[in-house]
């Protein structure tokens, strides 16, 4: 069982298809699968639907796939950092399914966990609830949200091993563990591939069973809002 690959392009070989649904990890530009996004740009795969909390910024992250018009639809909670996104959306060139952040994370987890639907209070009484089944539990109203199963998951971790076990670092964890579970195929890029057996089995965030392919990437790790206090 060989899960390690030498590059993003190799790791994506044979799994990209026009029109596919991709689930991506990352929050803002933190913990995004930079190398895999670039490889999808290079591959030119079209009509993508991408489930990702954000849409990158102009010229970086998923913003690159918007610039190249490879994206048909985004499933996101917040796209406010990307002017090209806004332009394409307001011009009707891009579809957008707004999903509250917690609902999006839970939809990914549910999809990966074989749960096709769950009820949540989030969005009741708002446009998010329109057209969705409503149901009362203990006198309160909830709406039905569906699990999200993607054709492909692309995630970024800090360390990983050849068995596909992943460990994330600080808030770059975010959506990555959830996205990793919901793809029929999951490709992970890591900062460092470590020898199998060196990760503490009690402290693995994503067990290898979820990860089909893994490679070591180069990460710019761009910072969106550099805020500091006096030293």
């Amino acid at each position, binding site marked *: 069982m060989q899960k390690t690959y030498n590059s993003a392009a190799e790791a994506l070989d044979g799994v990209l298809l026009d029109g596919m649904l991709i689930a991506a990890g990352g929050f803002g530009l933190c913990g995004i699968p930079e190398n895999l996004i670039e490889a999808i740009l290079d591959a030119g795969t079209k009509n993508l639907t991408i489930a990702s909390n954000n849409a990158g910024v102009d010229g970086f992250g998923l913003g690159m796939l918007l610039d190249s018009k490879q994206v048909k639809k985004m499933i996101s909670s917040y*796209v406010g950092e990307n002017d090209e996104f806004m332009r394409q959306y307001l011009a009707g060139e891009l579809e957008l399914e*707004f999903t*509250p952040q917690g609902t999006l994370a*839970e939809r990914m987890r549910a999809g990966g966990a074989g749960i096709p639907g769950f009820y949540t*209070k989030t*969005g009741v009484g708002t446009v*998010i609830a329109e057209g969705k089944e409503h149901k009362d539990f203990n006198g309160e109203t909830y709406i039905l949200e569906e699990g999200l199963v993607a054709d492909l998951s692309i995630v970024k971790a800090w360390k990983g091993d050849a068995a596909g076990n992943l460990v994330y670092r600080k808030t770059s964890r*975010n959506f990555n563990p959830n996205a990793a579970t919901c793809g029929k195929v999951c490709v992970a890029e890591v900062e460092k591939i470590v020898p199998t057996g060196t990760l503490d089995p009690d402290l693995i965030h994503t067990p290898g069973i979820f990860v089909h392919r893994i490679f070591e990437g180069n990460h710019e*790790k761009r910072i969106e*809002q550099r805020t500091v206090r006096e030293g």
Partner: protein
Amino acid sequence: MAWNRNQMAERAGQELRDGMYVNLGIGIPTLVSNYIPDGVDVTLQSENGMLGMGPFPTEENIDADLINAGKQTITELNRTSYFSSADSFAMIRGGKIAMAILGAMEVAENGDLANWMIPGKLVKGMGGAMDLVAGVGRVIVIMDHTNKKGETKLLKSCTLPLTGTGVVDEIITNLGVFEVVEGGLKVIEIADGVDMDEIRAKTEATLVE
């Protein structure tokens, strides 16, 4: 006169209780962390996956892997833990966060909140706001009493797409503090240099005694 941003944040700080887990929104709410009263130990949650948020880093401590929900670089504390987005919102939806303090475009007298979208104009998204107002124990809004055109933001009913219905418990504006009660908003505090006439003139929502 009225309160400035820091005074509003300071007033919000008085709502904090020892041992609380609190989520602070972007903007003025973020300033509340500067006004946590002495002897009150509050743990700040950041919905991108962190409990125990520390202050902004010094230049040499900036870490690209450590940001808050506003995408700002931050630091950790000795009690900090990190978790996934699904786990973060499990906490929020599950009612484990005692209080959220957030900004708003409009609040209605029944506690309806609009703070995420201006149709055809501003399309940024709700982020985690809908989850927060649905799941958190107590929701406090901090905002200016009026918008840039001088129009009130405390309405009989919201005109913008809602973030949640009947979710706001208290509103802190530059003019005072308002509690959402049966029948409308109850003035529970008035800012220095402000009087009830000014509040009445600048409020559309029903004010109850």
